[in-house]
């Protein structure tokens, strides 16, 4: 078991290295804005620009630049400085990770809480009108673009510009430490909007899985033994059906921790996703590199955690 864990961790580290190299190549090779000009603002002197380029090491060959970047990262934990805002990339990431974690975790909780009961009810009464209603709603929810839903929600329910003021509007996020109540209310709409698509997908998935498990032999045995239907469903049907959901939720959480760009942009949540989007728009390489690495790290960790979980449960996987 230990050997498997170690191997997965090592492979994860290698993946991270490859992702960083790939990011480096992509964003330096593809045509984009000049970081020296970004730094220098609209100043005139050519000598200044050349000096800035030299200071940033931009006149060195690509491999040298990458090596310098790696060295700084591994030895000093230094991800460089943002070209756009003078702050260190690390401080920017630390500053923005809180909102993203709040958003992602909350959304996961919401969609699991919503999708599991809905999926269960639909599976238990397939083809009933309730089933058709919920599955139809789920299909609708996953066909809607999330930003459209978010905008409509804002214009209907936000307390500053909405028709029926109910919840705090865009840009009202405050950190948990500052005011728990305001933190909570400012995230309700973003959570609901972000969770809607996932809830739909998970509900459909659970319904399909549960219908299958409920037709398995062991469930029939349980029924034959005289157990109540509720016990049968909850104790014997649900766990194997929900298993894949949990796995998927772990992986999706890993993805979301890299930042939900669209939701963060619409609701003005200062998270990693928005940071990355703004960095791309401003061609701010160090920040792009930092956010991509962070997001990749979350994805890789999530994958490793899931794999280790499987290996723990199923010893045959460990030899893979």
């Amino acid at each position, binding site marked *: 078991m230990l050997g498997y864990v170690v191997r997965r961790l090592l492979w994860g580290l290698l993946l991270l290295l490859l992702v960083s190299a790939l990011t480096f190549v992509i964003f330096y090779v593809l045509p984009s804005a000049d970081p020296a000009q970004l730094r220098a603002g609209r100043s005139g002197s050519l000598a200044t620009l050349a*000096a800035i380029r030299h200071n940033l090491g931009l006149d060195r060959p690509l491999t040298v630049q990458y090596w310098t970047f790696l060295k700084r990262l591994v030895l000093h934990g230094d991800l460089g400085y943002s070209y756009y805002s003078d702050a260190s990339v690390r401080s920017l990431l630390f500053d923005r990770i809180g909102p993203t974690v709040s958003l992602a975790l909350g959304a996961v909780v919401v969609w699991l809480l919503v999708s599991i009961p809905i999926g269960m009810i639909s599976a238990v009464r397939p083809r009933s009108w309730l089933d058709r209603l919920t599955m139809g709603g789920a299909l609708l929810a996953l066909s809607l673009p999330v930003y459209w839903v978010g905008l409509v929600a804002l214009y209907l329910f936000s307390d*500053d510009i909405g028709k029926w003021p109910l919840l705090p509007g865009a840009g009202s996020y405050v950190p948990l430490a500052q005011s728990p109540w305001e933190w909570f209310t400012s995230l309700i709409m973003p959570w609901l909007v972000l969770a809607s698509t996932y809830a739909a997908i998970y509900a459909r998935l659970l319904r399909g899985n549960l219908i299958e498990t409920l037709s398995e032999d062991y469930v029939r045995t349980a029924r034959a033994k005289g157990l109540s239907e509720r016990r049968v469903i909850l104790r014997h049907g649900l766990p194997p059906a929900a298993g894949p959901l949990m796995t998927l939720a772990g992986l999706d959480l890993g993805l979301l921790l890299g930042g939900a760009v669209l939701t963060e942009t619409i609701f003005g949540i200062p998270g990693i996703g928005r940071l990355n989007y703004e960095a791309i728009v401003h061609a701010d390489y160090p920040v792009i590199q930092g956010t991509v690495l962070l997001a990749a790290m979350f994805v890789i960790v999530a994958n490793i955690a899931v794999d280790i979980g499987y290996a723990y449960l199923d010893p045959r996987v460990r030899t893979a």
Partner: protein
Amino acid sequence: MARALARALVAAALTLVAALTLAACGSGGDTTAAQIDNGSTGKHGGTLRILTGEDPSSLDPGVTYSSLDLNVLAGTERTLYAYKPDDPAKIVPDLAAGPPQVSADGKTLTVKIRSGVHYSPPVNREVKAQDVKYAIERGFNPHVANPYASTYYGDVVGAANATGGPIAGIQTPDDHTLVFKLSRPTASLLAQATILPLSVPVPPEYAKPFDAHAPSDYANHVVATGPYMLAADKSGKVLGTGYKPGRLIRVVRNPSWNASTDDRPAYLDAIQWTIGGTPTVSGRQVLNGKGMVLGDPPTAAIVKLAYQHHRDQILFVEGGGSRYIALNTQVPPFDDANLRKAMAASLDRERMRIVRGGAVVGDIATHFLYPGVLGFDEAGGLAGPGEDFLAAPAGDKAVAAKYMKAAGYPSGRYTGTETVQVIGLAGEPDDNDAQIVDQALQDLGFKTSLKLVDASVMYGRFCALPKSKVQVCPNLGWVRDFADPQTVLDAAFNGAAISPENNPNWPQLDDPKINAAMSKAEVAVGTEKRAQAWADIDRMITATAAAIPWLWDKQPNLFSADVRCVPELWNQGHCDLAYSSLK
């Protein structure tokens, strides 16, 4: 060199006279003109919140160049000379103790520094003349890279080769006297240029370690000399307390500020900028809320809403700058002056103004010096020099056809093969203006390729980079650096200013006659002489059609009902932090 308009623009308020001439606005006969508040009275206390969409470009006074940053610094720092909010033409002493003393030959400028001005914690000590000397010298350091140092301080002896070390032409005979020795007789221009924040004193013993970084880190530890300061922790670190990138700027009272050394009342206790958010939502929050100001230009819909329903919460300030479309004169097809004039004649500049909010947001421009800048009237005033291709604000198809024929296209439509690259700004309302220009080009027969990008990309990768060979940049403009017309025209149209990178002369106009006239006008002495000289240059530039002027901004300035905004007429109407108050 003047600042480009693309950054967050807000303009100072004049009267609503022009707006009153609008016929039916649908709101009934409410025609009260808003008065300019000059902040001579006000209630003490309160926090002002400013909503803005963009981060400041830099809070280091040696780097700052955008109007948002200038607004912040006008409250936290003191320059040698400054403008009072309601008078954008006359410089008054701020850090200086008295008027500037210019020698008879115009090559020496002497300024006396006030006593009793102290830095904010943790530096705390009194400001000395040597600090201003250091502040200017560091502007030439590549780690700081001040955008206008070489333009305005370039005539100082020793500045031409400066890279951050001492400059011989800046002398400090004692702790409160500063003497500039120049190689050309431009001392009075230099005195005016000191209103820009490069003359903000910087304590060398505190800042040198930060300036040794590449890039300089001083912005994250900046100290203040004004009535307010950026909130900082005990060691003076601003980043994380007074400035959170992408989130907020927080300015609080400066404990070291001595009110007896300063004319500014400083009513507010604190000011906070909230960064991020979309213009329409922010606009409505400001209109419906309390204690808020909109730091960006409002969208057309918000202008309409405010104008019709919150008339006393919106101020239109003239002198916001002039907007123009740059046509690249060095590459086909617009290397042909007739094609440029045809394009100017066919463009509907009224529509370009309508998508920004209509007649209330500005006057249709007919040349490049704008209302409030010296020389405006001499250059033709509102009516302009009378070029036929700019005579009709809504465009004149007949004149356009005439110039197309002169260019060799008798059908009136372009038949060449080049694809005209049009690089515009993303975001409302600039993207709409870019699309109008794009469509106008297509209507003339040009094949176009339109891209809407971020401001830094627009300049850094396209419009300010000659080798990108972009033909049309529709979302450009200039704001003066200070009252002199040179700051509007020189860098923007002087052939000598063309640079392979960060080029300020976007049309790359290189007309020997204009260049020569500019060299002479740079050293002209006396307001009337300068006004006339630069007005003549303005007419010459307009005649080349290298750029199509289309709007003289009257920047709409939005604030909540309980805010007494004292607009900075010299800085596009941003509410001056040290004069504004809450009711």
